[in-house]
């Protein structure tokens, strides 16, 4: 546990070796990257056992180990190090597991790609950055890793660099998250000026003790939450995430499930004791989460691209995690993150398998693939059901816990009502995409004829993820936790350190409502899209206006484009005009013209006539003499 720095060091070693020597290694070195990642995963299990033993000893508040990084004696000392507690452990587990499986999957999916070695190198760096991010014991190191994650996501989203749309999606992801990153940096600077340290635990202690000026604390909290919004694709910075699927599908799985978007959730969970000290901050987090989760659910109803639907389901889930954090239910949020990484990775990798087999992403061209893809199809269906919250899959338990957390939490119960409203919508669009892709009659026979099941290297990882999707939620039960070697269930393990462990309890009417509404919604979905070859837009007939709104993502991208065109570019033109008219024409040319004019005036004293010059000399001598005598007397 003290040597947790090894975890990011392994994939970084993989990155360096692959970057330098990949072309000369057998299979371009993919085995090396996967092997190092697998070792990292096993080490996480070892760390998990250590953490478990440490908790057994009683009062466990995380293990920190740091090295001096920069020291100006008497002024400032900055230390870098690792910090391991339960939240870190959950993140480490998700990241290394999903990354390992995703890389195994990629050996088949990316087979024969011209930049195969580069792909594995960048994925290694990506995972290493994410591991550093969750292990960092101070905000400065966290910020470095945060930016590295952003960089790697850009490189991977723009991986198909001969595609115009991929390059634009990469830029969009980078710039959008960058807006939030600036906020995070400002927040870190504010906290540093107020506390004199970057150490997260020290800052949290000072915040809880009320040692930080409340106005600065509020500013820092809002700025850091802006960073989390950018990375975790919360409204209004969510626009990059759906476009991020321009990258290879395994990368989408990695970004959506493990390495990128959960960074924001992790940051909020980690800094939650600080956020709780700010009035209205938890409400803000909840409201942003609610807007994201509901908006994404509606948009998901109308999208026609299988990956895009799954991408919006990620937004839906991330919003839900933020809502849970807003009500202080860290355990529930982390449980959702935990199971989400399984079912979202399996959904993405399964849809990647569909795309690999059919080379089609439009649900209107798919259909009837159930028989053709005997492993991919059930995996996708299980993932979708978990996403929808079907009992007893993992998604259900996590959602149930979030509902209970909201019910018992300090937040207004209107939030609970809104979350309950989002459940059937989620179930409806997951039903829709499953029915349109795998059931009914094939809509495009040419595509259908060529469809085939993917090779075992692709179906194997998604099968493992699928199994975890089914059983992952059971860790909520104390008996299961004990059977796995823990002292109690999930909520006894991951909790808000300031408030102590939460009790696992079921709010019966909430659970029953959730089961009933999800079931009803799935039946409704079957009624709408269950026909032989229904088009994806069948539900649009109910309300063309809302269908258009959902299909066009509430026109938010268009709104941003409008803002950029009308305000940013207009301001740019103003600046350009100022530069031309004032700086260049007046400032630069003006100086030259004034000098030229003065010279034209002054030239007339050069008459060329000798007596004039002589007279000048005489007058000069006389004047100087008079002045000199005037001074002497």
């Amino acid at each position: 546990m003290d040597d947790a720095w090894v975890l990011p060091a392994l994939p970084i070693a993989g990155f360096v070796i692959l970057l330098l020597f990949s072309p000369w290694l057998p299979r371009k070195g993919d085995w090396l990257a996967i092997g190092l990642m697998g070792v990292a995963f096993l080490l996480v299990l070892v760390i998990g056992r250590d953490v478990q033993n440490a908790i057994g000893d009683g009062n466990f508040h995380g293990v920190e180990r740091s090295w001096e990084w920069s020291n100006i004696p008497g002024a400032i000392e900055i230390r870098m190090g690792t910090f391991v507690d339960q939240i870190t452990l959950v993140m480490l587990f998700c990241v290394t597991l999903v990354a390992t499986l995703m890389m195994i999957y990629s050996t088949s999916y990316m087979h024969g790609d011209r930049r195969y070695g580069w792909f594995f190198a960048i994925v290694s760096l990506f995972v290493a950055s994410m591991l550093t991010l969750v292990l960092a014991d101070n905000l400065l190191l966290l910020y470095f890793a945060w930016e590295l994650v952003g960089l790697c996501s850009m490189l991977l989203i723009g991986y198909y660099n001969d595609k115009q749309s991929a390059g634009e999606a990469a830029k969009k992801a980078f710039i959008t998250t960058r807006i939030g990153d600036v906020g995070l940096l400002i927040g870190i600077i504010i906290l540093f000026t107020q506390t004199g340290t970057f150490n997260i635990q020290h800052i949290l202690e000072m915040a809880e003790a009320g040692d930080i000026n409340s106005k600065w604390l509020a500013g820092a909290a809002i700025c850091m939450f802006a960073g989390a919004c950018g990375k975790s694709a919360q409204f209004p910075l969510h626009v990059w995430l759906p476009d991020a699927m321009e990258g290879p599908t395994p990368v989408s799985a990695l970004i959506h499930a493990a390495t990128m978007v959960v960074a924001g959730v992790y940051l909020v969970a980690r800094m939650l004791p600080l956020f709780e000290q700010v009035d209205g901050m938890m409400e803000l987090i909840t409201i942003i989460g609610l807007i994201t989760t509901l908006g994404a659910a509606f948009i998901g109803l109308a999208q026609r691209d299988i990956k895009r639907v799954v991408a919006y389901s990620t937004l839906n889930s991330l919003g839900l995690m933020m809502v849970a954090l807003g009500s202080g239910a860290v355990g529930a949020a982390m449980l959702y993150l935990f199971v989400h990484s399984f079912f979202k990775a399996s959904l993405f990798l399964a849809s990647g398998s569909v795309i690999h087999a059919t080379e089609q992403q439009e649900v209107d061209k798919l259909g009837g693939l159930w028989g053709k893809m005997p492993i991919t199809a059930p995996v996708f269906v299980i993932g979708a059901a978990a996403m929808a919250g079907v009992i007893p899959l993992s998604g259900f338990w996590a959602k149930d816990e979030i509902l209970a957390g909201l019910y018992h939490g300090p937040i207004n119960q209107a939030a609970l009502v809104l979350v309950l409203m989002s459940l059937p919508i989620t179930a409806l669009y997951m039903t829709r995409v499953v029915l349109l892709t795998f059931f009914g009659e094939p809509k495009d026979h040419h595509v259908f004829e060529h469809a085939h099941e993917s090779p075992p290297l692709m179906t194997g990882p998604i099968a493992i993820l699928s199994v975890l999707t089914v059983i992952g939620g059971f860790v909520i039960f104390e008996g299961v936790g004990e059977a796995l070697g823990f002292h109690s269930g999930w909520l006894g393990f991951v909790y808000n350190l300031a408030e102590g462990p939460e009790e696992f309890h079921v709010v019966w009417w909430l659970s029953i409502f959730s089961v009933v509404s999800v079931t009803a919604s799935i039946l409704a979905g079957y009624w709408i899209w269950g026909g032989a070859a229904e088009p994806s837009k069948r539900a649009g007939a109910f309300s063309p206006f809302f269908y258009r709104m959902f299909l066009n993502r509430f026109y938010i991208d268009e709104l941003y484009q409008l803002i950029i065109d009308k305000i940013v570019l207009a301001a740019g033109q103003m600046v350009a005009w100022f530069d031309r008219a004032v700086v260049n024409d007046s400032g630069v040319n003006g100086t030259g013209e004034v000098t030229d004019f003065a010279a034209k005036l002054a030239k007339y004293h050069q008459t060329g006539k000798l007596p004039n010059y002589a007279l000048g000399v005489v007058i000069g001598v006389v004047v100087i003499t008079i002045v000199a005598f005037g001074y002497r007397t």
Partner: protein
Amino acid sequence: METVSQSIPLENFIVLSSIVFSIGVYGVLARRNAVMILMSVELMLNAVSINMVAFAVYTAPSLFVGIIFAIFVITIAAAEVGLALAIVLRVFKNRGTANVDEIDTLKW
């Protein structure tokens, strides 16, 4: 034996040199012929020389600084006149005139 410094007061020399110098200045400003201007310049130089010799004799007769300076001025004036007349000659050969009002190409 009565010396000059005892019989003639210093003021007389100064007045003389002032008159000669002023005539020289007037000549430089008023004449149009380059040779006449040169002659006026010579008058100014001589006025200065008179001044220096007179002051040397009246204030520090044992030192010869002023007199030596006067000899320097005479020497350099001789060289300068030679040079200046050569220039005037060349100008006259070039332009057919020594009138300084007509030699005014060095203007804007």
